[in-house]
């Protein structure tokens, strides 16, 4: 190799095949541009204040909260895969474990970054830890997400330390080995924390007595949305992992995991999605017939505002819930990669739709009889920050894929 050509081959694991450095930079460049724009937008919001967004007193939550809830739901694949592999000993999912951790890390760190811009006084973020309100779902979310991000960092570090150059440092090797032993414990903690914060994110809306569209009764202090969010997260987390892995395989032109992994992920996703759809349908019926009317809100009034008519409810539960569940479980479609991935995509859209309905539609709907149904369009700063997080994710994943053994098999092959 000519020394005049810029190369990073010594950072890449031996025996692996990666594209040239210049091509890789070419791939990263536009993502860095998007990231830069996102960072600039975030800076504007921090410097000038939240008036840079199109949120207002009625739309106190907007694109960012929807984004947070969405990517945390999609990132659930991280803890769930860990749970399946380490707690339930499903070793056949091991090949996807590292990528799950990276995806989880990206999703959670991105969500926390957005949250820091989304609050009016980021300097006071630590007040939640100092003056916690045990009744508030948001306290629970804050604690658990912070702790879980820490767990993900601890799970990511061993992967990071397996980089060809970093491995050479004995202390890192030892550290990595010790962390490796810790991973099952971390997986257990991660499952515990995730269970609660996925649920609490649902609880955020389910406890809102003042928003009958979102309010649900449930079990003890947890509204039904607590459990529905957990179910939908663990149902779609594996689907998202499938999509990410399939995308990487397509972009790199390699088969990275045994095909069996896709089928298994699809099966798990399908089962859980089916349970979720059943639970959600029951919950919706209870809400329409009992919960909402008891608060004085006839449920048909929620759906009279175009375009948020009943087709939205139908789409969320049937088109993006029941249909992908069926496709993932039906033998003939589950066997075909194309159908599998389409179903996974539908499932992911479904969970995003569910989060959207619960964040944005809840706020759009009037509560007082003399209120209007309002609409909200995010400002460019909000969209750019959103884009920045996606770009950040792609960059981190690309770097991880290039320099770290994400898909390494036990025998060292990739």
């Amino acid at each position: 190799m000519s020394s005049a050509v810029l190369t990073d081959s010594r950072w890449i694991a031996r025996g692996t095949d990666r594209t040239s450095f210049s091509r890789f930079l070419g791939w990263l460049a536009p993502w860095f541009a998007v990231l830069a724009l996102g960072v600039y937008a975030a800076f504007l919001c921090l410097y000038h204040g939240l008036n840079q967004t199109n949120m207002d007193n009625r739309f106190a939550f907007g694109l960012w909260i929807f984004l947070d809830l969405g990517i945390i739901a999609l990132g659930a694949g991280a803890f769930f895969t860990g749970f399946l592999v380490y707690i339930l000993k499903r070793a056949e999912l091991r090949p996807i474990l590292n990528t799950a951790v990276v995806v989880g890390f990206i999703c959670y760190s991105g969500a926390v970054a957005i949250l820091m811009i989304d609050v009016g006084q980021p300097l006071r973020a630590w007040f939640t830890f100092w003056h916690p309100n045990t009744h508030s779902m948001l306290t629970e979310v804050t604690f658990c997400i912070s702790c879980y991000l820490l767990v993900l960092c601890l799970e990511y570090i061993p992967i990071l330390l397996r980089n060809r150059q970093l491995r050479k440092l004995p202390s890192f090797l030892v550290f990595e080995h010790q962390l490796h032993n810790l991973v099952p414990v971390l997986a257990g903690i991660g499952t515990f924390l995730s269970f609660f914060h996925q649920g609490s994110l649902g609880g955020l809306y389910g406890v809102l007595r003042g928003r009958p569209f979102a309010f649900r009764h449930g079990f003890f202090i947890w509204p039904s949305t607590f459990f529905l969010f957990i179910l939908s997260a663990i149902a779609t987390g594996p689907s998202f992992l499938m999509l990410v892995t399939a995308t990487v395989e397509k972009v790199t032109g390699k088969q990275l995991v045994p095909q069996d992994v896709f089928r298994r992920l699809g099966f798990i996703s399908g089962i859980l999605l089916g349970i979720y759809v059943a639970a959600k349908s029951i919950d919706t019926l209870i809400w329409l017939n009992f919960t909402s009317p008891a608060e004085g809100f006839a449920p048909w009034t929620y759906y009279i505002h175009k375009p948020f008519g009943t087709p939205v409810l139908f789409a969320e539960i049937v088109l993006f819930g029941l249909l992908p569940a069926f496709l993932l479980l039906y033998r003939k479609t589950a066997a075909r990669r194309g159908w599998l991935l389409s179903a996974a995509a539908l499932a992911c859209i479904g969970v995003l739709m569910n989060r959207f309905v619960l964040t944005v539609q809840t706020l759009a709907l009037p509560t007082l009889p003399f209120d209007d149904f309002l609409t909200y369009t995010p400002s460019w700063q909000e969209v750019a920050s959103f884009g920045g997080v996606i770009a950040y994710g792609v960059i981190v994943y690309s770097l991880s894929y290039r320099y770290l053994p994400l898909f390494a098999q036990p025998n060292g092959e990739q």
Partner: protein
Amino acid sequence: MKVTRRDLFVWGAGAAAGLVFTPVPWKLLDDVSIWSQNWPWIPQPPRGPIDFKQSFCALCPQGCGLKVKIAAGWPVGIAGVSTNPITRGVLCPLAFGAHQLNWHPRRVRGVQHKGVPSSWQDAGAAFAKACSEGPVVVIDGQPGRSASTILASFAEKHDGSYHVEMNSETRALVPYESWTGVSAFALGYDLENARTIVSFGAPLLDGWGIPGRFTRLWAERAAGMSDPQLRLIQIEDSLSRTASRAWKWINIRPGSESVLAAGLARALIEEKLVPAHGPMPDITVSDAAAQAGTTEAAIRDLVHTIAERPPVLAIANNHNPEIAALNVVLGAVGAHGGVVRRSKRTGKYIPAEAQIPNARAVLIDSSVLWDFAPESDAEIFRFAAWDGGSQKSDWLLPAPGFLEEVTDVPTAPTSAVETYAIAPQLSKPQFEVQSAAQFLVTIDPTLPTIENVIHSRCGYLLHQRRGTVYGPEVTAVAKFDSAQKLEAELSKASIWIGDPPSPGGLRCELKQWPTEIVSESPQNWASIWNAPVLPPLVTKLYRESTLREAPDRRTA
């Protein structure tokens, strides 16, 4: 001993762990919470001893009593004075933000001559020169004050003329002048004794008359009652605030108030609900109904309703002879619950709009509405505390702002009793200001000062031995043993209220139904507010709620 990397790690970890047990991180956290309580660039209120003082608002002729919260010498809050029997603790919404007006960006801070900064000396010299070269016209927007006496005296002494701007409420009383021989400034409405009030678009509950007077009366005698003691019938072409709260709202075509008044008068006479010797309108009831957008039956029905509970009083929004004539037909002129004479004041006045040929200069007091533009080539000396824009005058002279001068408060328009009060100064102007009256005193030092005039007025009140002073205590004037003591009491923002009017003191002669055509000028709730700008909080009310539509008024 060799320090290894491992040692560094161990010491580093140990130091980090140990730090947690020192106050350092916790104090730092504590400090961050204090630093983030408020940022240094957030404006802070003034700090200083807090006091509550009373005065009166001079921003419109109603002169409401004010309770002003003072901090470090600055007015920081406004409320009403509940012990004032006239205003009854009520203020118009504008008053609550008035204390911010003195810092309004459009405050006139220095003398300007044709848009260029000048000085009081130059203005004085120019005015003195103008006086020596020809007649000067002086225009007063709030007649009856001590300042008004000085303005009128100056005009008289220097062969000029003194003109008076009338607000819409006083203008509504003008038609009675020729029929009773009494000045509109000496007339008022005896609302307290009326049992039925027919308002032709007058915003009785939203910016008409003294804010506290009718709103409190209505609240006590009519609000929420299906059979109220005071029946308010609002005749208006849209559902205004007053119309929506009224006992009955009569929806008419825009601009048909006069014709409806004529139709009502005719129907009252035809239905024999009133004596027949009053002036009879020419228009028939059915014609009037057609023009007003209603039916003859509805009008006949309405007059029965109106006449059910006398005394009945009709109130116009502005100068409207036909509505005034309706009052004559109803027998409301010079009667209990009707149009009454409250003072013996006589004398003619020249309206502000009168043509002023050959005038060399026009001096406009700050109480005159900003939009008033005299039709004259004369040199115009405009006193104003705020600049309303579209400069029409040659000289713009900074007048005292809100609570920035001692002034007195004559009887409010529409009041049924005479009142008098002295408004103490509660705020310091931050630059050199002069009222028009003070300016004229510097031009002609033989004129009395405002203080002199106030002295003599208190002397006059004492001499009359009539009326009562309402302050922390209620004291009859007769009980004061000197004018100084009376003035001292009034200077504490007490109010003198004259005796109730004797209805018999007003004779009305109207033989023929008036046919003068009037055009209704659109009014809004802030029409008689003489500042050309609104307090910033009022602008905010327009902008941040759908409660009101903004008037055509310069905003902050």
